């Protein structure tokens, strides 16, 4: 077993894989350590059968019971993906509204090679230039900020230490290297180059979303039109990863084969969804200087002065090993990265002193303000042949929109196409709010039986259209990740404890954005009067367990910045008091951005890779 590498990357998802790829390409010896299994697409398996299956039980399992003692929801049912950690083994605990502790599925991306990029819907939006400079924008704004009586927003807003122009070339690189389809026109962000592949034809139900977004742009006075939501799914042969579109019987590429609603929460057996495994890691797997160790868990980082000397890990059999490295990159998703740093501090006084030079590690934990609206369209469509989203609009992300509405930050709005397209997903998400409440609505709707069961299907099957927004959450010092004082994982290590709340301005922002999403449906569903009836609109803060909700966008907790007293990481995502420790998953973000975060995490990781190449 090799025990020394130039670089160890902890985590194989969006934050880690771009660095591993670039450094391996440049001849550095790289070890990627991943807690989950390595499940391959069919073309990498002798016999061509992938362990990712188009099987609804793979996305959400049979019932399991939370048995961790002493939690307020001990004994509840939960249903998890085959590549999510089991919360009896490794729970995330959050503090509920009444101060009690609950176990939750929320806040895990996935534990598998590729991380969250195996299961995500693959929406790959850029942030806007304003997203990266919210302090400057709000300091200079003309209109007051609504629902912020104490001026928290101005006090807590931060500019990123890098601006959009610095990040932009790396967006281009990510869009090319990951393999993303979409359209550039109508996006309200500068592009120096367009590397998108051609999008597939949208699902016909999305026409309502398109028309509604056009009308919304008109009514807001900007005439900003929608664009095809960028999705990390290849539609053409992908040069940099060597992936090919399946060929039909005549030998022609068949990009439509990617279109299946077994997409969000499913690994792709065909490898067309651009997980970091198929896009970045498997293309370097044959290099002698690249290693990936799946099924291994890193327990601590070990330090000596300003150097992290390596990591301690448990191999698949549970044997403890120590591996040396010149550089250590932590990228195992924000909550787990913060946890790993805190566990390392608890075991090593030097590490503790250096990582906790200020009280910010774990603080300013962020997710997204998110929500939307849903309506039943006039007739059913075959939603089972869809990708996760078709249309997106930036009309609620412009500075003028923010000024006019007293908002501190904007949001991307897009339609979901694959949601509730498959039969079990329709039933198990009926009346449920999140991963913790799957099935509850259907199970207790006992009146829905026989004819009423048919009525429900007649009403809902293939007819649901939802519009979502993804917006910045106000950073708050008290929103944080700690080590839980009592609950331990299956290795006996304290689990992550999530403590967070929504700011009054967050709630206001979500109301404004949910109204815009509702309007997309009202306008799009009724081309004459623009008053189509919708089922509802709302946002996450209204959910019963709103404090748990994270949309699996887990960000912050180790933010980067220019001031060592106001951040955990320097502008290169290096821990301030360490020479060679980097954190590159969503934990680095000082603000959460007005869009799904994965592409930005990937772009930043490519940026840090360039920095690392300049020093080793």
């Amino acid at each position, binding site marked *: 077993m090799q025990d020394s590498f130039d670089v160890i990357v902890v985590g194989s998802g969006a934050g880690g894989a771009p660095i591993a790829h670039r450094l391996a390409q440049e001849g550095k010896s790289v070890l990627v350590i991943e807690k989950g299994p390595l499940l391959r697409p069919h073309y990498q398996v002798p016999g061509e059968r992938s362990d990712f299956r188009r099987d609804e039980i793979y996305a959400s399992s049979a019932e399991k019971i939370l048995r961790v003692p002493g939690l307020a929801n001990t004994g509840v049912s939960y249903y998890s993906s085959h590549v999510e950690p089991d919360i009896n083994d490794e729970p995330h605990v959050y503090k509920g509204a009444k101060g009690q502790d609950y176990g939750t599925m929320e806040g895990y991306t996935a534990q598998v090679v590729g991380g969250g990029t195996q299961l995500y819907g693959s929406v790959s939006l850029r942030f806007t230039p304003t997203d990266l400079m919210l302090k400057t924008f709000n300091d200079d704004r003309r209109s007051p900020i609504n629902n912020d009586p104490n001026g928290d927003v101005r006090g807590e807003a931060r500019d990123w230490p890098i601006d959009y122009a610095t990040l932009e070339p790396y967006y281009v690189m990510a869009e090319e290297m990951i393999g993303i389809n979409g359209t550039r026109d109508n996006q309200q962000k500068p592009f120096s180059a367009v590397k998108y592949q051609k999008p597939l034809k949208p699902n016909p139900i999305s026409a309502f979303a398109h028309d509604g977004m056009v009308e919304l742009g008109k009514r807001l006075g900007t005439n900003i039109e929608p664009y095809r939501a960028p999705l990390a799914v290849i539609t053409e042969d992908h040069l940099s990863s060597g992936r090919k579109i399946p060929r039909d019987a005549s030998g022609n590429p068949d990009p439509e*084969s990617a279109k299946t609603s077994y997409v969000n929460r499913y690994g792709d057996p065909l490898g067309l969804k651009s997980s970091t495994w198929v896009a970045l890691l498997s293309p370097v797997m044959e290099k002698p200087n690249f290693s990936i160790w799946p099924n291994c868990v890193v327990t601590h980082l070990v330090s000596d002065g300003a150097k992290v000397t390596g990591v301690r890990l448990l191999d698949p059999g549970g044997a403890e090993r120590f591996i040396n490295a010149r550089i250590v990159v932590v990228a195992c998703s924000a909550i787990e990265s913060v946890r790993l740093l805190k566990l390392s501090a608890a075991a090593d006084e030097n590490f503790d002193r250096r990582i906790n030079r200020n009280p910010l590690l774990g603080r300013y934990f962020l997710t997204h303000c998110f929500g939307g609206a849903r309506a039943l369209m006039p007739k059913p469509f075959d939603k089972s042949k869809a990708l996760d989203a078709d249309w997106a609009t930036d009309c609620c992300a412009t500075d003028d929109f923010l000024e006019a509405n007293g908002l501190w930050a904007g949001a991307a709005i897009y339609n979901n196409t694959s949601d509730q397209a498959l039969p079990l997903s329709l039933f198990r998400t009926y009346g449920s709010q999140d991963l913790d409440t799957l099935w509850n609505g259907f199970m207790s709707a006992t009146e829905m039986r*026989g*004819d009423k069961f048919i009525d429900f299907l007649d009403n809902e099957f*293939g007819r649901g259209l939802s519009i979502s927004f993804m917006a910045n959450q106000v950073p708050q010092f008290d929103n944080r990740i700690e080590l839980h004082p009592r609950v331990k994982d299956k290795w006996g290590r304290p689990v992550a404890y999530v403590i967070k709340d929504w700011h009054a301005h967050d709630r206001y922002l979500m109301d404004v954005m949910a109204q815009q999403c509702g309007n997309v449906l009202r306008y799009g569903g009724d081309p004459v009067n623009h008053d189509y009836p919708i089922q509802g609109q709302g946002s996450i803060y209204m959910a019963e367990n709103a404090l748990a909700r994270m949309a699996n966008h887990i960000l912050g907790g180790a933010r980067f910045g220019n001031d060592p007293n106001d951040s955990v990481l320097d502008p290169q995502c290096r821990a301030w008091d360490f020479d060679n420790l980097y954190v590159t998953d969503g934990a680095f973000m000082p603000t959460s951005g007005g869009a799904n975060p994965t592409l930005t995490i990937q772009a930043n990781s490519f940026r840090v890779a360039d920095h690392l190449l300049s020093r080793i």
Partner: protein
Amino acid sequence: MTVTVFEPGSEYVLNHCTKYLARAGAPPPPNDEAAAEAFRAKIAEAWRFPIIGLMRVADAHPELNLVTFVYKTVAGDTGSIQVLGTFGELYRPIPLQPVMFEGEDTGYRAVSVGIPKAQVHTYKYVLDGHYFVDPVNSQRVTLGNGRVWSRFFTDGYLQPLVLEPWEVRILYRLIEQILPFRGKEAENFLKRYYFGLNREQRKADMPKAFRLDDSVGEVNAIDKLLAREEAHRLTDYRLCLRQIDRVLRRQNPFLDPADTPAEEFVELYEKMAKSHGSGDNPIPGWDYGEYGNPAFFLYILRRHAVTCAFSHPKYAGNVGAAGWAFLSERYSDPATGTLFDWRPAIEAPLGTSPYYR
């Protein structure tokens, strides 16, 4: 019976066992049931063992499951662990091999064998001449001679494993109240669908359809869930079905409860839905000391019924994909055809995807 050993490789085994079996503490010593019980209780999904997988080569042996037995010991253990089961020759145990990671022993021992689908088998591990049940798998059966063996079943097994025949019959009637497959129109559809299957599928699926009497096999699939993934719910079924039997016998002393007229099942369903505990809309004849919350049982049953009717047919319900076909026929557009065209995404022979196997 000859059994073929396959070698899917260490990566396959580790990918399917590490998440569950890697944890603090030493594995139980062989043949120590108390230690095994304590070990098993901590494993989040012990039911996943042995691993019932698909054959790695997509086109070879569609009739087989790849069944992988995994035994956990400590790295370097030189003991030779073997598995003996009804799937192989009875007096010839099959040795498990060390599972390696980066050239080093992980402490896992494993062997993968091809076993026909729709079968049930019993097995034991053998070490130094001692025979003992699988410390991880909680499926057990007591044979006629009183000996306890470990049990597993492969995909699509059609005989009830844990439910009694009378329980199956009552369940069948209760589920009629929930799912739409027993209305006249739906029944006609199912008949047409099963008869319309191609010859090969008909050979495979018709017996199931007849056995299941115009359903899509939900009750059989529920039996499988209760035998394995949701064994923790078997008690709810046992206790509740006994109460239902009691209530129905009290109503109709001279009628087999499963033959109770449909409207009385409707009435019972409605009463159960309103009865959340003793004193809350009590159902005459129901012993709340035995099972306190009839509505809760309906909740479980609703989830199970729908899951089994619409999940992939490998779980033994949704026979021949009849549940999907029902949706596919009901929702269609005169111009474009069906609005639930599930086949192109699904593997052959069930579906028509040329790429996904």
